C-alpha cells in the first residue's frame, strides 16, 4: 500500500529486538483515518510492542512511521501525545491515591502563576469531552474507589484531554462485563463519528467482529495479513492468528459430581479499608466438578480467596474442607487440608522470580518429609522431583532446573506452577485466572489439565474475570456481585447474556428469562 494522507497511521518494516528475542520482524500496519482497526494476535505475538513503538515507549530497531502521510520520528510519549496519539494500556496507568481529576491532568496541568494547579479550566474541558462522547465519571472520586470500567473511562478521558486524534486501546475488554463492553463500543462509535481513529489490540475474535472493519494479524512478531473483517469468519481469523487449525470450544464430557468436598456457609469478610467485601456468601463444591465463579474485578473475589487460604480474617461464617472447619486457621494448616491454589499473579504470589526453577518447584511442598529431613533440605529429592515436573508438564527449556525461573517464558512458568500444585494431590484446586497472559497452545494445555483433574474426581474452583473461559470450562457457574453470590447456573443454562446481566448487578429472575 502506498503512503497516503487517507491513512492516520502507517508503519513500515518495524523490527524490534529484545536481547536475543526478535519481538517484531518487518511488520507493516495501515490504519485508515476515522476507522476502527483491530490488531489481532496471541499473547506474546508482539501486538503491544508494536503499539508501544507507535506511542514512543520503545524505539524500533528498524522501520518507519507515517502519520497522515507524513514521516514522523516518535522518540518518546511526549512526541506521540503532540502528534495526537493517545494510548490506553492494558494495565492502567493510573495513580490509585489520586482523584480522577488529578489523574486526567497529570503531566498536562492547567496552572496559575508559580505552577499552582488550577483545575477550573481543566474541569470545563473534561466535562465537555464527557458529554460529547457520552461518558460519565465522578471527577472527585479516588481511583482506588471506582470500578475497573470507570477506570478505563478515565484512561480514555486522559487521552482525549490531551487532544488525541488516534486512540490505541490495548486489550480494552479483558476486564469488562458484557454490558460495559457494549458501553465501550458505543463510546468508540461516538469517537469515530467525531473523526477519530481507534486502534484496538485484542486476541478476542468476537469483539473484532463487533467493532472493527479491518484487522491486521500478527503472529510471533511477523505480519500475517490485513483483512476485511466482514469477509472472515471467527474460525478463519483464529487460524490466521495461531497458524494452525484450532478448536474454539473446549472438549469435555459431562460432569459426574460426587460427594461434597468444600463448603462455604454465610461467609463475611472485611477488606483492609474496613468495608464488607464478602457478604453472607455460601457455596458448595462436589468432587468431579468445575465450579466457575464469574464476576467483575473488585466484587470480593480477592478477599474471598484470601479468606479461604487464611491470609485474611473471617468475620463470621464457616469454611468446610472435607467436613473440617478451616476458617481462620493458618495458611499452612489450610494448605495441608488438601487445598492447592494457582494464583492469578504468578510473579507476585506463585513463584520467587530470583530463585531457581528447582527451588520454586518445592515452594509448596518443602515441608514434606520427602524434601526435608530433620530440618535440612533434601536437595537430591528436590532435583529428582523437579526433573519429573519438567518432563511431565513439558516445561521448556529442558534442563532448566538450575536457571532462575525469571528466565522462563510465562507459559512455562505457569506449567511448572500448575504441575507443582497438582503434585500436592489436592482435593480442591483453586485456579484464579489460570491462563492469564498465555498463548493459545498453553491455554489449551492448561484447560486440558483442569478437566483431567475434574475427571479424576477432584473439585476445581475456577475464579476468572474472563467470562468465555468460565462458560467454556465450568460445570456450574456462579456469579459474584458486591460480595455475594447472586445467581448460579448449570453449564447448559448459562450464557453470555444471563451471566453478564448478573455480573453487572442485574436481578437473578431477569437473568433467568434472558
Amino acid at each position, binding site marked *: 500500500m502506498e503512503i497516503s494522507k487517507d491513512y492516520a497511521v502507517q508503519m513500515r518494516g518495524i523490527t524490534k529486538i529484545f*536481547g*536475543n528475542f526478535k519481538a517484531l520482524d518487518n511488520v507493516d500496519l495501515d490504519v485508515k483515518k476515522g476507522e476502527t482497526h483491530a490488531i489481532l494476535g496471541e499473547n506474546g505475538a508482539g501486538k503491544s510492542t508494536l503499539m508501544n513503538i507507535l506511542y514512543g515507549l520503545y524505539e524500533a530497531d528498524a522501520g518507519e512511521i507515517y502519520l497522515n502521510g507524513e514521516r514522523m520520528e516518535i522518540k518518546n510519549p511526549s512526541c506521540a501525545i503532540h502528534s495526537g496519539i493517545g494510548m490506553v494500556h492494558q494495565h492502567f496507568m493510573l495513580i490509585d491515591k489520586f482523584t480522577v481529576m488529578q489523574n486526567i491532568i497529570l503531566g498536562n496541568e492547567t496552572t496559575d502563576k508559580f505552577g499552582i494547579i488550577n483545575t477550573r479550566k481543566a474541569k470545563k474541558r473534561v466535562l465537555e469531552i464527557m458529554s460529547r462522547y457520552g461518558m460519565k465519571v465522578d471527577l472527585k472520586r479516588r481511583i482506588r474507589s471506582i470500578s475497573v470500567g470507570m477506570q478505563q473511562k478515565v484512561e480514555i478521558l486522559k487521552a482525549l484531554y490531551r487532544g488525541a486524534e488516534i486512540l490505541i486501546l490495548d486489550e480494552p475488554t479483558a476486564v469488562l462485563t458484557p454490558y460495559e463492553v457494549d458501553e465501550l463500543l458505543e463510546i468508540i462509535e461516538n469517537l469515530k463519528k467525531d473523526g477519530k481513529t481507534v486502534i484496538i489490540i485484542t486476541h478476542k475474535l468476537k469483539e473484532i467482529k463487533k467493532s472493527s472493519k479491518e484487522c491486521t494479524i500478527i503472529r510471533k512478531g511477523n505480519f500475517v495479513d490485513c483483512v476485511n473483517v466482514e469477509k472472515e469468519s471467527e474460525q478463519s481469523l483464529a487460524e490466521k492468528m495461531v497458524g494452525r487449525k484450532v478448536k474454539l470450544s473446549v472438549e469435555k464430557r459431562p460432569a459426574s459430581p460426587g460427594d461434597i468436598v468444600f463448603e462455604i456457609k454465610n461467609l463475611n469478610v472485611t477488606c483492609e479499608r474496613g468495608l464488607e467485601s464478602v457478604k453472607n456468601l455460601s457455596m458448595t463444591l462436589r468432587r468431579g466438578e468445575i465450579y466457575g465463579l464469574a464476576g467483575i474485578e473488585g466484587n470480593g473475589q480477592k478477599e474471598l480467596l484470601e479468606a479461604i487460604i487464611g491470609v485474611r480474617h473471617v468475620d463470621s461464617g464457616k469454611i468446610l474442607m472435607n467436613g473440617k472447619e478451616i476458617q481462620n486457621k*493458618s*495458611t499452612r494448616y*489450610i494448605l495441608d487440608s488438601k487445598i492447592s491454589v494457582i494464583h492469578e499473579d504468578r510473579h*507476585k504470589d506463585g*513463584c520467587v522470580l530470583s530463585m531457581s526453577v528447582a527451588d520454586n518447584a518445592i515452594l*509448596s511442598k518443602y515441608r514434606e518429609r520427602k524434601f526435608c529431613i530433620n530440618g535440612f*533440605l533434601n536437595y537430591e529429592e528436590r532435583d529428582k522431583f523437579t526433573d519429573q515436573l519438567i518432563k511431565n508438564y513439558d516445561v521448556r527449556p529442558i534442563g532448566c532446573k538450575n536457571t532462575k525461573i525469571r528466565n522462563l517464558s510465562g507459559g512455562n512458568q505457569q506449567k511448572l506452577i500448575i504441575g507443582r500444585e497438582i503434585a500436592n494431590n489436592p482435593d480442591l484446586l483453586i485456579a484464579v485466572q489460570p491462563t492469564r497472559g498465555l498463548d493459545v497452545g498453553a491455554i489449551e494445555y492448561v484447560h486440558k489439565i483442569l478437566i483431567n483433574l475434574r475427571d479424576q474426581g477432584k473439585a476445581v474452583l475456577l475464579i476468572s474475570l474472563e467470562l468465555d473461559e468460565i462458560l467454556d470450562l465450568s460445570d456450574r457457574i456462579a456469579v459474584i456481585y458486591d460480595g455475594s453470590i447472586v445467581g448460579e447456573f448449570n453449564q447448559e443454562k448459562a450464557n453470555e447474556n444471563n451471566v453478564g446481566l448478573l455480573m453487572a448487578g442485574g436481578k437473578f429472575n431477569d437473568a433467568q428469562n434472558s
Partner: protein
Amino acid sequence: MTRKIAKLLKTPFFCTAMAIFFGSMVACGILLLTGYSASESLAVMFNAVFSRPKFILNVILKSTPVILTGLSVAFAFKSGLFNIGAEGQYIVSTIASTITGILFDFHPIIQIPLVILSGMLAGGVLGGLVGILKSKFGIHEVLTSIMFNWIALYLCNFVVNIERFHKQDSDGTYSINPSGFTLLLNDWKFSEEGRNFLKDNPILSDIILKTDFNLNFLIAVLIAFIVWVIIYKTKKGYEFRVSGLNPDAAQKAGINVQKNTIYTLFISGLLSGVAGAFSITGTSIHNIQTLSMFENYGFNGLSVALIAGSSPLGCIISGLVFSALIYAGQSLQFKIGAPSEIVNIMIGIIVFFVALVRIVPTLVNRFLEREESLDVK
C-alpha cells in the same frame, strides 16, 4: 573466548574485586590531589599490615567483631530485612556481658559461656523486639532500629555510671573478672616460664605477648559456616530466603512471614551479640566505657555485609579486608600525616562501587544476548 571472560566478569567475586580496585584508585587520586604521594601511601599501608607478624595478627583479631556484625546484617538481608540496629545490639551485648562478667565469678568453664550467652541474648532480645514491633505493629525496622541504637548508647552510659560498676577516676566500668577472659595463654605468657620461652622466640613473642591473642576469630569463622548452612541447607533458611525475596509468595505458600521476621531479627541480634560479647571477653581492657558517639562496630558490619554481597562466607574475607584497611589507615596518619579518614572515604567508595557493579552481570548478559542475536542474523 569472550564467553569465558564474560562468565568470569559475572562472578560476584570479580565484581567485588573490581569495586575494591576502583575504590583504591579513587582514594589514591584524592591523596595525589591533596599533595601526598600515592605510592608512598600504598607502601605505608602495605607495611602497616604485613611487615610484622603482630600486625597481621592484630588485623585478624580486629576483624572478629566486624565479621560477626557483618554476618548479622547479611543474615537479615537474606531475609529481606535491613538490620541497621546491629550497632545497638552490639552495645547492649557489651553491657550485658560486662554486668555478668563483673557480678559473677565462676570457673572459666561456666563463666565464659555465661558471659558470652548473656551478651548474645541481650543482642538477640533487642533484635527480636524490633521484629515484634515490625510484625505486630507494622513499624518499619529501620525506624525502630535507629531509635534502639540511641537507647542502647545511653543505656551504656547509664550503666557505666552505676556505682556498683563504675571504676573510680575513669570513664569506664571495672573490668570483668578474669575468669571470663577468652584470651589464650594469658596467664602463661606473663609467667616466668612463658617469658623465658618467648624471649627466645621473637616471632611468637610478637604475636602472643603484644596482642590480645585469642581464638575468637576462629569461632567467628565457624559461625560464618553455621550461618551459611542455616541459610542454604535448612528448611528454615529456605523459608527465610523465600520470605526475603518474595514475601507475598511466601505467605501464600504457608510460610508464616511475620513469625519468621521475629526469628530472623532475633538470630541477627544474637550474631551482633556475639560480636559484643567477644569484644568484652577477648580484648583488653574488658569493660564498657562512656560513649560520646557510636563506635561503629555495627555500622561497619553494614559495610562488611555489603562488600561481601550478603554472602556469609564472603563476610570473612570482606571483614578481613575492612579491618586491614582501618588498621592501615591509622599508620598512614602516623607515618606520613595523611588523614586516616582517607580509609573511610575509600571504604565508602568501595561500597558505592559495589552498588554500581551489582549491575555488571546484567550488562554482561545483555552483551552476550546481543552477540547471540547477531549470530542469529
